[in-house]
């Protein structure tokens, strides 16, 4: 479902003397449907950068990133927009939403974007929020006022609202208590069971051991110092 | 007797030709406002300078002229203009609608149906029906060009929203032959139906605004309205107190300081004609000397 080949990335800092910083070279990995692959490596090794490139958030310098039939490294913006809407979900570490919108609508939005009826979308959102122990009295409020842990759970609910065939998870269990961590791990297991291809970053080693089928160490993708 | 100090009908021949060219163009494109080089006239703007120039351009020595102001032949404005043309053109005058060949009017259409060969000349203060909604002349011209008339209905919409009904009672806009929206000058909307399919030539002159427009005989002029608020020509719900007419446009007169009032035909010639034919209204016999 996800297939990365020869992927490279560098940042050019035009405002700092045009410094070119290569951050990745020859990256390659595959995630099959129903498989969960964990990215490991030291902080700064490029785990998040790789995830962002798969999501189209960072531009690739070279190589290919196939998600389903689409090569994200070469795709037009419009194709990536469609990919994100239909196929590829992403749970980042940060919740970024329009301030005034209710939590229920924030979670339902990916379904509304797919043209699902509002009633069904909100019902699904409500189910996820209950499961993630967000008290119902908060559902009509904007999550921008929530605590970090609550925001993270809203973010996860939003990421799991639609059954994406491929999912990117960036530290989904960070800052969660034991109960909610358990809920999130079950959500991941269920997604894997229904055939989703999952690529994730888990600092939580126990969680990693429980949900990941394989690990890929991104240290191997670090460009040699000579570059 | 013509005052020899003036050319026939006051204006010089070249000016009259210029106005006639504008008139021909206006008749060729019904409802379209034709710019013309309006002259200074020996009367103030607002007193009918546009109408007077059009009348001057139309008059021939054989014409018989009638001038009315709000339907009356005997008010200051009507008398002044009639005398102006008596003196400068030496034409015959009349107060009798059927006898006139040219009728200059301010704010009314005579009750007596006009006939082929007659010319009705309107005095127009503001020729542009879109003016109060769109102040830019460049834009209103463009709107006419492109038949972009949604704004006209916005005005009527606002009327209904504020008053529950289309409150516009005079200068009620019409669409001419399905093309140009036209301001019929401040005639009461009671007169609007007479604009359409009229046998006479109707000419409109705006002196200060330098515009001439026209309705050739038998031109269709449809009053704008909404399906659920159709156009309704309205008048005071009375009969004329002098001649008893139930179908003519009425003026309300205060007759004393005790609340006494009477309704009389605004068209004095029409009213006098009916009384001469023996029609008598509520107060017509009791006070025959009262003339509005």
């Amino acid at each position, binding site marked *: 479902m996800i297939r990365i080949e020869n992927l490279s990335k560098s940042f050019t800092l035009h405002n700092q003397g045009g410094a070119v910083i290569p951050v990745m070279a020859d990256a390659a990995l595959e995630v099959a449907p129903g498989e969960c692959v964990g990215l490991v490596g030291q902080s700064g090794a490029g785990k998040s950068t790789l995830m962002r490139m798969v999501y189209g958030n960072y531009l690739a310098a070279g190589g290919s990133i196939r998600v389903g039939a689409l090569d994200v490294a070469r795709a037009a913006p419009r194709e990536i927009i469609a990919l994100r809407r239909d196929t590829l979900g992403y749970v980042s570490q940060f919740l970024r939403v329009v301030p005034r919108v209710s939590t229920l609508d924030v979670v339902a939005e990916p379904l509304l974007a797919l043209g699902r009826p509002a009633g069904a979308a909100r019902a699904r959102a409500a189910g996820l929020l209950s499961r993630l122990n967000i008290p119902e009295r908060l559902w009509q409020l904007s999550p921008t006022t929530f605590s970090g842990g609550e925001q993270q759970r809203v973010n996860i609910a939003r990421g799991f609202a639609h059954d994406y065939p491929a999912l990117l998870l960036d530290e989904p269990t960070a800052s969660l208590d034991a109960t909610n961590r358990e809920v999130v791990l079950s959500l991941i297991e269920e997604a894997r069971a229904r055939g989703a291809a999952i690529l994730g970053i888990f600092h939580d080693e126990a969680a990693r051991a429980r949900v990941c089928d394989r690990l890929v160490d991104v240290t191997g993708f670090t460009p040699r110092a000579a570059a | 007797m013509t005052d020899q100090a003036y050319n026939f009908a006051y204006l010089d021949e070249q000016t009259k030709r210029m106005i006639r060219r504008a008139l021909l163009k206006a008749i060729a494109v019904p409802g379209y406002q034709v710019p013309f080089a309006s002259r200074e006239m020996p009367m103030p703007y607002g007193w009918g300078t546009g109408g007077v120039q059009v009348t001057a351009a139309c008059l021939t020595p054989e014409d018989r002229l009638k001038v009315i102001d709000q339907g009356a032949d005997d008010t200051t404005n009507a008398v002044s203009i009639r005398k102006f043309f008596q003196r400068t053109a030496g034409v015959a005058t009349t107060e009798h609608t059927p006898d006139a060949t040219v009728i200059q009017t301010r704010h009314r259409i005579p009750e007596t149906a006009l006939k082929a060969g007659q010319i009705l000349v309107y005095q127009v203060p503001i020729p542009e029906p879109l003016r109060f909604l769109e102040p830019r002349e460049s834009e209103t011209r463009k709107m006419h060009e492109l038949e972009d008339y*949604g704004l006209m209905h916005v005005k009527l919409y606002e009327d209904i929203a504020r008053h529950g009904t289309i409150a516009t009672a005079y200068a009620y806009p019409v669409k001419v032959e399905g093309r140009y929206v036209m301001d019929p000058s401040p005639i009461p909307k009671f007169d609007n139906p007479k604009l359409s399919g009229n046998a006479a030539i109707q000419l409109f002159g705006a002196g200060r605004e330098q515009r001439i427009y026209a309705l050739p005989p038998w031109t269709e002029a449809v009053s704008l309205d909404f399906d659920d608020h159709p156009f309704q020509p309205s008048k005071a719900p009375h009969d004329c107190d002098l001649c008893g007419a139930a179908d003519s446009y009425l003026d309300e007169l205060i007759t004393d300081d005790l609340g006494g009032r009477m309704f009389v035909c605004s068209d004095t010639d029409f009213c006098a004609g009916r009384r001469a034919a023996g029609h008598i209204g509520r107060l017509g016999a009791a006070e025959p000397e009262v003339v509005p």
Partner: protein
Amino acid sequence: MTAMDRIAAVTRPLLQVDGLTKRYGARIGCADVTFDLWPGEVLGIVGESGSGKSTLLSCLAGHQRADLGRILYDGRDVLAMGETERRGLGRTDWAFVHQNPRDGLRMGVTAGGNVGERLMAVGARHYGQIRDKATDWLDRVEIAADRIDDRPSAFSGGMQQRLQIARNLVSSPRLVFMDEPTGGLDVSVQARLLDLLRGLVRDLGLSVVIVTHDLAVVRLLAHRLMVMKSGRVVEQGLTDQVLDDPQHAYTQLLVSSVLQV
């Protein structure tokens, strides 16, 4: 057919712009601008004052005439159109939301009349139906129905802006041009407006070209982003990609100059 189905059925861009150039004498307004806009897409144009983004918008919307280039709307050549046809588009398929609601509203006409104008312009002649539709649209932009006979001068800035949006969207346009629609509004009012716009874009399948200098606004509203400098497009791409991984020196400067986007 839902908005989504309509969008899915489309096989060509709604708006195709190719080599659009506008000069003011020797000075460049905008130069060689090329992009496609697909149904349901929101394109943000950012840049500092004088970057040409407003010139570009007014050329696209037909308020100014471009010197060179081509604009195809739904396959029709906009620059070759007569003014009647172009104005016809302007009051049916297209809409333009001005930064200052006073430029886009008739301040002397009631809220209902403002919303109803586009309907009447295309021939609506039933007062009751026009009023019902205006009421429905006031509700959609969260203006109470009992304000329908008030003039916009009695409204707050945020309400005026929402009224302008209702007035523009009542004729179900497919393409909306917006010039700094949230500029000049309080932050809380901005958020409400952004939410409203997002919902309308999604539910109606609108295509939008939005000009702004507010990167936070485009982040939340625009699918794609075009960065302009000195009349030229220096970078374009997915909004979050351009903001998070800017490639051009100017974009990097622009993004790093903002406290937090």
